[in-house]
């Protein structure tokens, strides 16, 4: 019966169950248990090399866990067959730490490509319009026709953000989306991510920007040496766990 599902029963959009991932003998993340709810904006912090990118890659099935289970929007990312991986990734918008823009496509084409990947019924005009909107939202409306190598570092990063948000996916993961941005632009991007979360998208942001994490007062996951050492709920202001720990 509709209506029997109440708000608090919403299933987790992302669920980690005892996840460990090693590269050779090097353990990058270890025994992670984690659940992210729809519409949540969550920050992931921790020192360089703590395993943040590894954790995000597990969600996107860029890598598989060495052991444990990763569930994303009901799909088992840990045992997904190669042909189903694209299905999973179409539900996840990703801002990669190294942007990963297609070098032979312009900024707009990069964004439109990601849009048409999720839905082929979108016409070229609509893709163009929505792509331009997304670029406008990150302050790059006037650089739509530039190729990645013609953009500054921060501009490339913003194209990557635009590409991740344009299709309004149920889940958005962003790896250091403001690393190359000045304070002003960083806030602009953070506002954008918040807006998206308010529309129901789950947003997970790995970041080093303490300022932003502190002021936003959202849920903060702290990773140190591959272990989730603290999961601080939204609305609580506190010293960042790993800074206390180190």
């Amino acid at each position: 019966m509709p209506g029997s599902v109440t708000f608090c029963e919403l299933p987790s959009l992302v669920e980690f169950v005892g996840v460990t991932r090693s590269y050779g003998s090097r353990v990058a993340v270890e025994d992670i248990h984690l659940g992210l709810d729809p519409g949540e904006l969550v920050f992931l912090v921790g020192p360089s090399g703590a395993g943040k990118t590894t954790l995000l890659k597990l969600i996107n099935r860029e890598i598989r866990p060495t052991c444990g289970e990763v569930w994303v929007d009901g799909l088992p990312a840990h045992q997904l067959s190669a042909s189903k991986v694209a299905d999973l990734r179409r539900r996840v918008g990703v801002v990669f730490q190294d942007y990963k823009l297609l070098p032979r496509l312009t900024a707009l084409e990069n964004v439109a490509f990601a849009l048409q990947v999720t839905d082929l019924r979108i016409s070229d005009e609509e893709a163009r319009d929505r792509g331009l909107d997304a670029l406008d939202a990150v302050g790059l409306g006037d650089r739509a026709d530039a190729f990645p190598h013609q953009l500054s570092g921060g501009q490339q990063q913003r194209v990557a953000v635009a590409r991740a948000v344009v299709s309004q996916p149920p889940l958005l993961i962003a790896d250091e989306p403001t690393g190359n941005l000045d304070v002003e632009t960083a806030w602009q991007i953070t506002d954008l991510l918040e807006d998206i979360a308010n529309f129901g998208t789950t947003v997970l942001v790995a970041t080093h920007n303490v300022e932003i994490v502190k002021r936003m007062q959202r849920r903060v996951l702290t990773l140190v040496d591959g272990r989730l050492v603290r999961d601080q709920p939204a609305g609580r202001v506190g010293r960042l766990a790993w800074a206390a720990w180190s």
Partner: protein
Amino acid sequence: MVVTRNAGRYLFHGAFRNWLRNLAGTAPALGSMTLLLLLSGLVGLSGFAMRNLAITEAHDASLLHVYLRDDATDDQVAALRARIEADHRVAGVGYTTKAQALARAQRRPGLPELVDATDSNPFPASLDVQVKQVSDVGAIDALVHDDAAVDPGYPTSYDQGAYQRIQQVMLGAAIAGAAFLLLLGFVALTVTANSIRSAIHARRDEVTIMQLVGAPRWMVRGPFVIEGALTGGFAGLAAGIVTLLISLALISAGSSSFAQVAPGVTVEVAIVAALLVFVVGIALGSGSSLFSLRKHLES
């Protein structure tokens, strides 16, 4: 509907745009493919001409003269002729009279005087049997050998040793030629495919990014396969046109002498060869793109 149209537009428009943008990286592959397809085209035509030459040679070599007794009656000869013509291994039978044989012999040095010196014509009349296959000449010789109409001293022009040598040489030449053409074809295919593969390899980052963004398989492979087909198609087109031009130039330049060296290579054959080169180019370009993409995608 919209989906198919969008998909088609995405594939072809996108692939063509990327192909143009990546021309600098594709240039070596394009050049290599063009040259090797051109080579294949020319070699294929040469092979065809050689085959025709070999057939002509075999035709000449499989002419068997059956020498007739001077005192054979017309009935005997007719019966022999009928018997030979009935054989399915025989293509046709001609007749040379004693007078014609004499006339031919007189063209050799020393012989005219000799002929003048005697009154009689020592040369026998002959049935000239065109056998279909060189290898059957021996069997036909055995067939007619003891016929009443045939000269018992020199029954036929068949010389076992000589025929075996001819057969051997022709077999050897055919094997060597075929092996060489196969080798060349293999090299052309492999090297062409390798060119495309290294062009794809250079762009495997792009493949990875497209996969990471969630593009389904066909959206990742499609454009690369079409780009490969474009490269192959352009190379094939260039090679085909040059093949055609060279053949036409040769055909028209030395119509008569060329026909001897490369029999059977007509304008139609040249056009077919050019088309083949073009099609092979497209197939090779798209096929090897697909092949090397599969390797990257699987991993």
